[in-house]
């Protein structure tokens, strides 16, 4: 146990002192996310608002007319539950609910008896911060007229959230990027492994009582740790800087990050089994990483790819890791059920482990 921990510590020190490795595994995904986030935040469009009138008073009709008069706003009259389901599938951007009693409340305030302000729920998707901002801009303009200056507010919006199935670009991209980073952490392990073998460090370790499972175990521990740090950074930046709300279980997210890291680490060992030099390990890593990156649906949705590429996409492990993370983190549409994603990753892990245990050479 002592040796395992000491070796893990040594591996982590070697890693953190290798600026290039730190950049590619920690900074690079962030740079990507920030770039993507900035690109997709700039786009704006018309607002489709589901309009739910539970009051049916002259005041609510006035409010509807005020919203309808805002530029770029289209109102769809519906019920609250239908409005929310329409929003979930992306047909509307927001749902505004005028509750029963709204008219009475506004009337009471305008006669000079300030009471409790009328509550108007406004549903938005926080993972679409630009749309959310647009909705509140419109709502603010309308309610500002209603709430005459110098008076206590008569009406205030109540913020409600609902996760939409149609992910906007950044919500789609953040979990995808996490999957991609986890892949890199795993397969990039091949490079220091081959380097240590080339320098005969693995051979020197083989002459000590250290067991091979300790050597592999320390590598697994270290890679898991890096993957978790990545996950924390990416989730934090995604939610703090770009408002991507994590709707799912963090524990399940961590579970898929760990499973993905171990599966890709075993792929890293396969690369290290066939690469003789550090340079060839570098080349093979890139050769595997780039096609996987573009075919996994991390950047482009799989159902928009040509059919023959879809076949490949269905085979590669990153597809399932990224899909699982999108489902768990932001409630993205399922490409495959979670258990299938987990099973595919475990399958890759077992196959790669089998190949590596036959082919990997320590010296």
């Amino acid at each position, binding site marked *: 146990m*002592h*040796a395992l*921990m*000491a*070796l893990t510590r*040594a591996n982590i*020190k*070697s890693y953190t*002192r*290798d600026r290039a490795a730190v950049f590619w595994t920690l900074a690079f995904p962030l740079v990507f996310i920030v770039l993507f986030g900035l690109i997709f935040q700039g786009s704006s469009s018309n607002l489709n608002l589901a309009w739910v009138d539970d009051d049916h008073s002259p005041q609510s009709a006035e409010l509807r007319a005020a919203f309808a008069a805002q530029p770029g706003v289209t109102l769809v009259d519906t019920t609250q539950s239908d409005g929310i389901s329409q929003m979930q599938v992306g047909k509307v951007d927001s749902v505004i609910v005028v509750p029963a009693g709204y008219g009475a409340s506004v009337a009471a305030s305008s006669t000079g008896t300030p009471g409790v302000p009328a509550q108007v729920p406004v549903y938005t998707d926080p993972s679409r911060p630009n749309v959310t901002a647009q909705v509140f801009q419109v709502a603010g303009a309308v309610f500002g007229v209603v709430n005459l200056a110098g008076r206590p507010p008569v009406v205030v919006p109540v913020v409600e959230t609902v996760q939409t199935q149609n992910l906007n670009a950044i919500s789609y991209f953040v979990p995808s990027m996490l999957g991609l980073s986890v892949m890199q952490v795993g397969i990039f392990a091949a490079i220091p492994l081959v380097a*240590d073998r080339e*320098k*005969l*460090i693995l*051979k*020197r370790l*083989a*002459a*000590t*009582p*250290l067991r091979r499972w300790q050597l592999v175990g320390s590598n697994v521990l270290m890679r898991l740790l890096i993957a978790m740090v990545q996950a924390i950074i990416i989730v934090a930046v995604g939610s703090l800087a770009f408002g991507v709300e994590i709707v799912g279980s963090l524990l399940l997210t961590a579970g898929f990050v760990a499973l993905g890291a171990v599966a890709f680490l075993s792929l890293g060992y396969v690369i290290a089994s066939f690469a003789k030099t550090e340079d060839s390990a570098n080349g093979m890593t890139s050769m595997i990483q780039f096609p996987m990156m573009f075919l996994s649906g991390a950047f482009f949705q799989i159902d928009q790819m040509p059919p023959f590429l879809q076949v490949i996409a269905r085979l590669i492990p990153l597809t399932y890791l990224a899909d699982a993370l999108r489902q768990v983190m932001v409630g993205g549409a399922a490409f495959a059920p979670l258990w299938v994603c987990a099973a595919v990753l475990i399958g890759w892990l077992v196959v790669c482990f089998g190949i590596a245990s036959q082919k990997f050479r320590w*010296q």
Partner: protein
Amino acid sequence: MQGLTGVASDAAIRVSGLTKRYGDLVAVDGIDFQVAHGEVFGLLGPNGAGKTTTVEILEGLRIQDGGTATVLGLDVATNAEAIKPRIGVSLQTAAMYPKLTVTEVIDLFRSFYVAPRSTEELIGLLELGERRNARTADLSGGQRQRLAVALALVNQPELVFLDEPTTGLDPAARRSLWDLVLSLKREGTTVLLTTHYMEEAEVLCDRLAIMDHGHILELGTVDELVSKRFKERAVRFDDDPALDDATLGALPAVASVKHDDDAVLLYTLDVAATIGALLAAAEAKGVEPKNLGVRRATLEDVFLDLTGRAMRD
């Protein structure tokens, strides 16, 4: 010390018929030797002789194709895990984790053993104090070699394997490593070292095996190896005009007279008789031989005689 034949039954290393092939190449071709406890044993030979392959089989890093080898009484083919905690190993290539410091690497290796030496002791022993916080990538060749030897001593091993431990070291560093090996010997540690430096073998090794092309050509103490082939020794002194070659050649037991720069060499089978007669002859002429000494053949001469070529060809 043990002679050609006598090695105690509880030998530290016992090798018999050991063979290792790499494809068509027979790297080690059925060699036999034994190393006694507390002995410093050398494998001497040029690159490609099979020294490193032999050592790596004993270290448990390679499996032989034929023959048997026991280390500390344990069969290397079946008991490598029991052997490893008791031996120390310094490989020919002394690279280590390039981004870790000297103390970090030593502490890492200490974690592999049950009762390791202290980091301080190891750093002191190998004179690495000034470089303790340097990354191993920044060490000089000699410092890296010293670190490799320090790592071989972490577990206070009963048996230490040093593969070309002084290759690339400057003369001062080489001397200090020799002193270390001699102090290990004084403490009773058994050492198996490979080298292609004759002088190193002569200074350090109680016994040695001369290897070439996978075979052991000759095995014994330095004295045995030299005297077996070179019966004559040379009595040397500074050239003196009073003593001409005719006079010298007539002295008892002298086989031949040669001149080497300013020195005269009298090759003789009986050093005592020749020196006595030389001193008498000189006294008769009223002179005294200056810088009188006896020179014997070296391992270099032995290797040349065995293989017909010099060691580092």
